[in-house]
């Protein structure tokens, strides 16, 4: 028998409402969605069944692989860019500044609405957009650069712009745990600035780096709005396809199956990323001797 203290009983009572809420609106819907991925749809009506047809249909279609590759590519590029671009800024904020003003300045931009930022990039990158017209007025080009907008490039730039502040937040809180003392100890033992980074700072804020990378990756690879508005025809992703099943075309079970396939792909990326860090000797909790 497990003994439960009064404090713990009270704790359970306090988390109960949220637990109930999450059960009803998170766990049950997720299970329902999973169950539904084995159903059938006929004439926009769901028919309970147990069939793997939806999965088979997705997996036998080369288009699905192409769209999923696009989604993963968007996610990977955005995640790499976000982490690589934010890390130096986070480093600067943690080790080189006293106050938090700069940090807050960056965080505030997180709240500049998602759609507005997509819209802004459309204005900037469009063929009559700011960059093209400016370049043409300067006489550097005579035709608008069409590939700026409606391309994976536009999608990735925009998603990176959207993800930077939150990625930075995660990295800053991870770096705050790596006290200056550890950096100095490493320097004292003969590490150059790069060696301090690879042998001390990165392994010590491993969780933050993995968190920032995966969070950015999942959100951008699963995003369907940015690629739809800015990605162009070649930038179509699985996310758009799934969203369409639920908004227009209406084959929900097929959409659900694709959603779970996409999640599985995310899991593979996660495992791959963790393995990569391990191979690069950036993971903590490893012994280097026998």
């Amino acid at each position: 028998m497990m003994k439960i203290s009064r404090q713990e009983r009270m704790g359970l009572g306090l988390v109960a409402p949220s637990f109930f809420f999450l059960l009803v609106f998170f766990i049950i819907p997720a299970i329902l969605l999973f169950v539904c991925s084995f159903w059938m749809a006929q004439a926009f009506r769901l028919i309970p069944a147990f069939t793997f047809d939806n999965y088979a249909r997705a997996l036998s279609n080369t288009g699905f692989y192409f769209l999923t590759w696009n989604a993963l590519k968007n996610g990977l590029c955005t995640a790499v860019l976000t982490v690589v671009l934010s890390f130096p800024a986070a480093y600067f904020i943690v080790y080189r500044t006293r106050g938090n003003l700069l940090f807050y300045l960056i965080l505030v931009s997180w709240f500049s609405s998602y759609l507005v930022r997509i819209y802004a990039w459309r204005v900037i990158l469009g063929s009559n957009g700011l960059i093209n017209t400016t370049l043409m007025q300067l006489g550097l080009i005579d035709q608008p650069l069409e590939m700026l907008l409606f391309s994976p490039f536009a999608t990735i730039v925009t998603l990176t712009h959207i993800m930077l502040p939150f990625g930075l937040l995660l990295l800053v809180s991870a770096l705050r745990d790596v006290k200056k003392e550890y950096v100095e100890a490493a320097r004292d033992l003969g590490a150059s600035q790069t060696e301090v980074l690879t042998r001390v700072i990165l392994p010590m804020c491993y969780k933050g780096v993995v968190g920032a990378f995966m969070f950015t990756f999942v959100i951008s690879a699963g995003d369907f709005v940015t690629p739809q508005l800015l990605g162009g025809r070649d930038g179509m992703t699985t996310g758009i396809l799934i969203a369409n099943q639920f908004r227009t075309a209406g084959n929900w079970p097929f959409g659900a199956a694709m959603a779970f396939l996409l999640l599985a792909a995310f899991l593979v990326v996660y495992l791959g990323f963790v393995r990569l860090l391990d191979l690069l000797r950036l993971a903590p909790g490893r012994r280097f001797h026998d």
Partner: protein
Amino acid sequence: MSTPNIVELYGVTKAFGALTVLHDIDLGIREGEILTLLGPSGCGKTTLMRIIAGFEATTHGRVTIKGSDVSYLPPDKRPVNMVFQRYALFPHLDVFDNVAFGLRLKKWPKERVREAVQHMLHLVQLDDYGSRWIHELSGGQAQRVALARALVNAPSVLLLDEPLAALDLKIRHHMLAELKRIHQETGTTFIYVTHDQDEATILSDRIVLMNKGCIEQIGTPEEMYAHPGSLFCARFLGETNILSGAVSATDSEATFVNVGPGTAKVPANGTAVLLGQSVSLAIRPEALQVARIGAGEAAPEGVNALEGVVDDVVFMGSRVVYSIRTPIETIKYQETRSLDGSMLARGERVRASWRPEAAVLLTR
């Protein structure tokens, strides 16, 4: 120019903004010694040490190590290593990999790294701890690992910034002995920072006493204790009685000072004093002789003596410390506890006297 000093500081000054925390420090550290930087909190000990290690740049002045100027070398290029106050052991590495950290950066071959690390772990008596994680160590063990991690690099100088501050009293005494042993076995020069005078006297070959960013006095623990150069020094190292008064006479042999109703004679020690100048005398509590004055007996006036009443008696193990209220100061007197129980009691009238050599004349 060759020098017997392994580290030399020339006119080192350090300012943080408008606040100058080190003033024109000149200091030489001899090869193989344990030199302690001692002083009250905030006097600049850590800053001085960080300047030697290369974590702070000097505002003015130069630092040389083994005769070559290192003022502009970054910390990783200096042949010194540091033991941090809270150890700063890397939590993502185990004990072995922590100790091996510096050697691996120097690209030592695997076999040699292992030998050196095992040798070091043996030296700090942690032979079987190589695979422990840092959070599995006690405070004293973490301290040893920090020592091993620094010493394995065979630094010219080992810097220790209050390494025992985080340990409790018992382990601290044990670690002091260990530090001494390790110092003897390795022969490395130690620069040791502390604000604890006991640690400093137990451990040091020489003590550098610092005050408000300046060096107050340098000397062996015995010298510092027996011949404090200033009031600050006399007060900081050990218990002492300070009597102030004006110079009443002076000749080539001795100086005479009016202390309260009596006069004190101090042998001349080269300190120049003027007639009438106010000076202080420092007399250690154990250098006094105290005798009872019987009831009705007149107190003998005289040189180097004060009359008073026992105010308080405190037992400190094998010693007894008395507070004696005299007309000018309450002074402390200390003696080893006698077994026959012939101790003074509170309220008894006594006469405290001292030999002329026992008093140190201080002009600042």
